[in-house]
């Protein structure tokens, strides 16, 4: 196992950032730390990198106890949300930095830098200053710089958070394929569940300083451990004492299915191909339901229509927590 974190606690003043966190991150995989802002995921990543010190607990990287190692000796690559480019150095010099620190021979450095710039598609920009690059290009340069030292783990802190939606999506796909080529153990922090589901092999959901669940994207989506994980990974509605996805509710205009509950359409909003309904049931629930445009038209749904709701067969269902609304 590449990274092992045990019994990690971290407080900033009174604020508990991490509360007894235990995580194992497998070698060679792309793992996402997913959770809401302020949940502690960045703190965890920075403690793994050695940029922050934990109050208690241990960090082991590739079998070596790194708890008391300074960041410079951990051999991790770190990529920052705001790139942290060396503004006074050219793109090539930025990428060469770690190798120069390690006093590698000049021609080897030059060769490696060219290779990496090609990998991140920045070969023709090698003599530019970072200020002459776009955000996406800067982040690719930062990635090449981190990869140059052949780190045992690559850590990315919201790497695409500062980019606009289109570039963000492009870089996300590209990171996935880069990882398939390079196979370095990679951990990235994100608060975007779509990003995590799409890119990661494994996802660690972190909330309020605790690990809520660890699993593959399918496991998390299909078998969420609790209401929080379920609601964080997609839309959730509450119906008959359970939480489930709005598209996992069958809707009919007559009570055809056993156990269906009667209700009235309170609100109807059409967004592109889907129609979102708010249904008030006779049991007093306010249920969100999503149906396709065609389905809604076939049933001639409008506000005030009477409908019958049933949880779909095979729907992901989690008992509703008292605390969650």
């Amino acid at each position, binding site marked *: 196992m590449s990274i092992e974190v045990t019994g990690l606690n971290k407080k900033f003043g009174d604020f508990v950032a991490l509360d007894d966190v235990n995580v194992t991150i497998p070698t060679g995989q792309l793992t996402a730390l997913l959770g809401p802002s302020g949940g502690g995921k960045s703190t965890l990543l920075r403690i793994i*990198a*050695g*940029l922050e010190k934990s109050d208690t607990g241990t960090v082991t990287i590739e079998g070596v106890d790194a708890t008391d190692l*300074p*960041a*410079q*000796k*951990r*051999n*991790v*690559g*770190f990529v*920052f949300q*705001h790139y*942290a*480019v*060396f*503004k*006074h150095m050219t793109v090539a010099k930025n990428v060469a*930095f*770690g190798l120069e*620190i*390690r006093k590698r021979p000049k021609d080897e450095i030059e060769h490696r830098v060219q290779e990496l710039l090609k990998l991140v*598609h*920045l070969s*023709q*920009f090698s003599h*530019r200053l970072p*200020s*002459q*690059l*776009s955000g*996406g*290009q800067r982040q690719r340069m*930062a990635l090449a*710089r*981190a990869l*140059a*030292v052949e780190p045992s783990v690559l850590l990315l802190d919201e790497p695409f958070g500062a980019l606009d939606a289109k*570039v963000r999506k*492009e870089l996300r*796909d*590209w990171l996935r*394929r*880069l990882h*398939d*080529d390079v196979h370095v153990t990679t951990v990235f922090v994100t608060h975007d569940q779509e990003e995590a589901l799409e890119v990661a092999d494994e996802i660690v959901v972190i909330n309020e300083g605790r690990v809520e669940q660890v699993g593959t994207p399918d496991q998390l989506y299909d078998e969420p451990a609790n209401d929080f994980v379920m609601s964080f990974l997609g839309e959730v509605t509450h119906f008959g004492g359970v939480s489930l996805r709005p598209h996992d509710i069958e809707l009919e205009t007559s009570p055809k299915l056993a156990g269906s509950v009667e209700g009235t359409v309170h609100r109807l909003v059409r967004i592109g191909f889907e129609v979102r309904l708010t249904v008030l049931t006779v049991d007093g629930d306010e249920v969100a339901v999503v149906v396709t445009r065609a389905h809604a038209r076939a049933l001639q749904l409008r506000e005030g229509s009477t409908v019958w709701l049933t949880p779909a067969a095979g729907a992901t269902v989690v008992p509703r927590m008292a605390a969650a609304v």
Partner: protein
Amino acid sequence: MADTLVHAVPDPAPVEEHRRAPRVRRTPTTYVLRFVATAYLFLLVAWPVSLVVVNTFDDGFGSIGSLLADPDMVVALQLSAYVAVWSVVINTLFGVGISLLLVRYEFPGKRLLNALLDIPLSVSPIVVGLALVLVYGGRNGWFGPTLAGWGFQVIFSTPGIIMATTFVALPLMIREIVPVLEEVGIEQEQAAESLGASAAQRFWRITLPSIKWGIVYGVVLTLARSLGEFGAVKVVSGNVLGQTRTATLAVEEKYLNFDPQGAYATAFLLAMVSVACIVVVAIIRPKNHA
């Protein structure tokens, strides 16, 4: 793996945004404000300073020539330069150190230190001179007799002049570097750290180049201030002709001794050095460091 990025790579990098001339609406107020500012600067700065230049060259280069022919005057100019250079060196070293301390570390008494650093700007230089005499005065000073016992004279000697000058110019370097350090932030250093750079490597390769221009401005301001220091130096120097008389003290002396020509010429030389510094920096500084 290149397909999605193929179109992304050649995209024109957003090179420094073109600075469009701001469209200013010219109203009567614009002209009134402009006139007031110009008149203010002219009456307070430009006119008096230009008169110094005019008076210096009343009889061509004669007054400057006779000034440089006076060996005591040459010593005074050399002493001023010597003191200014030491003040710049000391203030640069301590300035960088204290700025790093103020920006990067939290410690008890930080606010107090911050306030203390402004004292040299807010207190009259005469007070600075007197305070130094109280501590280091050779006969009655708090610490002076001990130093004198070791054969080291501070007051009425060059070390005292350097100390007084350094004291007075102390905040200039720090006030230049601190905002630059704050703006640069700590992420570049953390990136360097994770790439294996030691504390010394991070300082020389990352921190120092990032605050380079702050230091350059700090040096210019410190140099100009140190060359021009008068009050504090007057108290601690003793004004011994050919030994502890600096150029600014010479200006006053010449003026009081009914040699205004010599006073103007010396003042002109002092002013020229400061102006030259500012001009040189304006020329060499990169355009994007506006």
